[in-house]
């Protein structure tokens, strides 16, 4: 094996190259079925290589890095990307039949899908904060285009809103990045080193804290816009609601995590510098604000996808809150919560996609008695909502238990506030579930050719996580959590 390409670097390159090539390839596949399944295949191969990261870890380069933290994110991301591609195969087929999409759009869609994967993998694997910034922007742009793919006025408006807010966020993030570079330049000198993350963390203690503080404000707001933290969340509900459902799933399941990952990277730089203000309070504040706000916003929702988009805001708030609290326990809970939330929320969006197709509407007022008309869909949705509401035996109960109790030991009032707002959110979600899944069913009930593999897989994973976590996984997550705090 040559020194240039040891197996680890091969994996690394594959993770980036395969989606890129896949995008190029898919842009030229005429037949839709083939395109859909090729998309699945490519995603699956990517996932396989992501698993490879566990075995072989490449040396850290100036641009790319693989460490435990981003390995977690990459594996979860590629997994959700794979299952989502399976779902999208069965979803898009229907969209074609019903004429919502044309063949040209579909090719574009699949190419963009892989482009998005590329962007996200790059963002996760990049060691250079500038490169990370570019990658996040790329991912954002691709999703913008996909949100607008239906070309309905609502879709365009949502895409536009997403685009503009996203761009401003990007601008802020860039300014923050520049500041970090300036802070680093004084210590590690000019050039790439001053933007290489591992170098930054190593030397962060020597940086000018004032620089870092200013930088973190911009970075938190910039990437926080992508995370969907209140008050920067505005784009999120509409982008989820108006785009194709697979994209909603990817947004909630992946992109938000990627943005959060960026914030985490800079947080660890911050916490490596004694002089800088602790990033914790800022994150806790934004996180709690998101939870409270989203919890109340859930009540007045009428569009089913928008409902779950707000619940994503809520859970992103919870995760940010947990990481803001810091400490091994909270970080562990935050990581686990993030992973489980990606799985659960994407599963929910799979259900929602099929439901919307079967019922021909996204208005919750027009969807009733699903457990009667579509038992499988209805009960899966019920299970998903129960999971997302943090009820046992699903895994999110465990993480919320950990977050609340670990907070309670340190800041009781915060814990109570968090708990109560989670309760408010639960109230809203159950209220909606009552309307959707129970009661007298409505007239329309076309049978849906749903593929339950992705839904079942995700929910099963979440269920198992709620009951039993493999010790290896626990040890690994704990190590990462310790790394973060």
């Amino acid at each position, binding site marked *: 094996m040559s020194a240039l390409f040891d197996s680890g670097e091969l994996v690394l390159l594959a993770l980036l190259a395969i989606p890129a090539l896949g995008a190029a390839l898919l842009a030229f596949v005429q037949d839709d079925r083939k395109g859909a399944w090729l998309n699945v295949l490519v995603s699956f191969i990517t996932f396989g290589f992501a698993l490879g990261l566990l075995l072989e870890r490449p040396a850290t380069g100036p641009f790319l890095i693989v460490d435990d933290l981003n390995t977690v994110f990459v594996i979860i991301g590629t997994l959700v990307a794979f299952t989502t591609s399976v779902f999208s195969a069965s979803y898009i087929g229907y969209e074609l039949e019903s004429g919502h999409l044309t063949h040209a759009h579909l090719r574009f869609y699949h190419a963009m899908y892989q482009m998005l994967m590329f962007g996200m993998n790059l963002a996760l694997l990049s060691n250079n904060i500038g490169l990370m910034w570019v990658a996040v922007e790329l991912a954002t742009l691709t999703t913008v285009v996909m949100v607008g793919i239906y070309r309905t006025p609502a879709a365009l408006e949502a895409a536009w809103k997403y685009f503009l807010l996203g761009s401003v966020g990007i601008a802020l993030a860039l300014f923050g990045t520049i500041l970090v570079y300036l802070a680093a330049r004084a210590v590690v000198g000019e050039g790439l080193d001053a933007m290489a993350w591992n170098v930054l963390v190593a030397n962060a203690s020597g940086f000018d804290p004032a620089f870092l503080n200013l930088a973190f404000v911009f970075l938190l707001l910039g990437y926080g816009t992508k995370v969907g933290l209140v008050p920067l969340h505005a784009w999120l509900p509409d982008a989820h609601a108006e785009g194709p459902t697979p994209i909603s799933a990817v947004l909630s399941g992946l992109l938000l995590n990627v943005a959060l990952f960026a914030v985490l990277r800079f947080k660890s730089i911050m916490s490596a510098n004694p002089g800088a203000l602790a990033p914790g309070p800022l994150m806790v504040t934004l996180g709690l604000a998101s939870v409270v706000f989203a919890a109340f916003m859930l*009540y*007045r929702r009428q569009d089913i996808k928008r409902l779950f988009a707000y619940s994503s805001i809520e859970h992103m708030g919870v995760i940010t809150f947990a990481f803001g609290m810091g400490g091994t326990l909270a970080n562990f809970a935050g990581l686990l919560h993030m992973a489980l939330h990606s799985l659960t929320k994407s599963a929910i969006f799979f259900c929602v996609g099929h439901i919307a197709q079967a019922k021909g509407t996204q208005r919750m007022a027009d969807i009733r008695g699903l457990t009667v008309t579509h038992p499988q869909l209805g009960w899966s949705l019920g299970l998903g909502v129960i999971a997302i509401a943090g009820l046992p035996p699903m895994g999110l109960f465990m993480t919320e238990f950990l977050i609340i109790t670990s907070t309670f030991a340190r800041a009781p009032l915060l814990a109570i506030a968090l708990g109560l707002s989670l309760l408010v959110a639960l109230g809203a979600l159950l209220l909606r579930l009552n309307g959707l899944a129970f009661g007298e069913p409505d007239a329309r009930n076309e049978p849906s050719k749903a593929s339950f593999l992705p839904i079942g897989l995700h929910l099963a994973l979440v269920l198992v996580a709620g*009951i039993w976590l493999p010790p290896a996984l626990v040890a690994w997550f704990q190590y990462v959590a310790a790394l973060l705090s």
Partner: protein
Amino acid sequence: MILAGLLGCAAALLLTGAAALALHGRRLAAPVVYGVSLVATTIGLLLAGRALFSPDLPGGTLSLPIGLPWLGAHFRLDALAAFFLLVINLGGAMASLFAVGYGAHEETPGRVLPFFPAFLAGMNLVLMAADAFTFLFSWEFMSLSSWALVMAHHRRPGNAAAGYLYLLMASFGTLALLLAFGLLAGPSGGYEFAVIRQTPPGAAVSAVVLVLALIGAGSKAGLFPLHAWLPLAHPAAPTHVSALMSAVMTKVALYGFIRIVFDLLGSPAWWWGAAVSLLGGVTAVMGVLYALMQNDLKRLLAYSTVENIGIVFIGLGLSLAFQANEMQAAAALALTAALFHCFNHSVFKSLLFFGAGAVLGSTGERDMERLGGLIHRMPRTAFAFLIGAAAISALPPFNGFVSEWLMFQAILLSPNLPQWLLKFLVPTVGALLALSAALAAACFVKAFGITFLGRARSDVARDAVETDGWSITAMLVLAALCLLAGILPGYFIDALAPVIDALTGSSLPRQEQLDWLTIVPIAQSRSSYNGLLLFFFIALAASLAAEAIHRFASAAVRRSAPWDCGFPDPSPATQYTAGSLSQPIRRVFGTVLFRASEEVRLPPPGDASPAQLRVRLHDIPWDVLYAPVAGVVGFVAGRLNALQFLTIRGYLTLVFGALVALLMVLAVWQ
């Protein structure tokens, strides 16, 4: 090992639930599921009994590598757990037995069969859990599975709303318990009960934990004013599940309270007793008054559950008060009364719900105004229900009386309490207890009399048929238990001794060797009761009288139209209705407690249309507690909702604002 066996039963139940999914739609599904549940719960019952009655309890601890990593799931079997396991598995077994027959009436078995065993398993797990996480996990799982069962008949109006309120309140309670355990575990985060026991918290913390436990366990048990969900949710479920929820799940909630306050929390302060027993008294009276106002049989039973929970809380409060003053014997007496009442209530409330279920199954009616005369068509059910009604009305020689009698004996020890508040409060609570007992009798005269006696008020009631053998068997077994516990209470009290001993460090004198099986809680000269003799004498006197009269006087019977002061009316509509039977009591209590208002609309002279009487009752706790909360949430949601509809410029302004704000914070902070 007993604990392992019990866990095995729980696991078997869970698997049965899973299997029910596989069996979905088969005709065999219901008998199989209920049969397996019956077997599993019976085994659990026997094991628990073994654990309770064997002098040296082979309880032991078991910890499995599941649940919270690096904590694991801890299970433990001590006397308290064993007693409650006995109670719930008895209830579970009877419910399963009843359901073998009753399940045939179920129109949507697919929504019941998977969750019924899961519900049983959840309750079993709560009782065995020995760390906070496992406890809360099982607790919430129990709520969730019972919620699914409440939603089984989701298409009936109101049921979905009931289920919603139920799960919301349950989660609220779980949150309270979560915080309570958070306080108990302390910053070190020792969630195992063993660890918590070793580090008793300070006075202030304990007080907060007590309040949280009252909220958490109380909301599940139906403590006033957190009871609002209970009378909605319990009747909404299929009847054998209603029985489980009302008779058994509330006991699990009580167990949670006892486990936290008596076991984990260390020595109590005297005012705890005052607060808890007063809450109990109010709950008892309010519960039975609500029950008296109901015309829906199952809802009446649910409200009477609230009453009995109140009675149990009275006993618990007394025990706390006595313990705080190191009066261990008295504490033991009060706690014995409370736990004995737990057992009794689980027995006769199951029995009564089964009776209601039998009626519902054969007539399809829960509204007493459309029932009546069922004693002719369903004599066995009527007999069993009568026993249950007498027992729950605390009438000798049945079991309900014994526990309330013990409760009174405990109350009569109050003068020895040093605190003046308690001196005055406890007798007042005693008055509340007496009042609730009397009202309970009235309530169940109504329940039995209107439903089973008189003349049929509707065709369905006229054409009712006796229910199936399984259900009858379940009811008769429970009726027999009501009588046994009533006439041989000594054995039951002795069985409770290890539990009481573990919790109060003292227990009642052994009862079984006393002559004539009398029970003597404190001293012969002070008070004693002998249900066996009473029963014997009554039976003797009654049969003697009957025998003598039939022999020496007349035995002739002639059937004819009722006398009715000479104006017998053929129409059943002229009987007293459920509403009119309780009208005097409503006049006495309702005007204040329910802001009851009656408006009579008499037709003008010459108009033949019937006069109308409309009664309007207000649920005050709902008006002052629940409605405002809902209002606030709705208001805030409405106000924030405006933010969904800003323009992009508006959203940009938000971002800009956030940025400037943070920068200012930074500028000020540096």
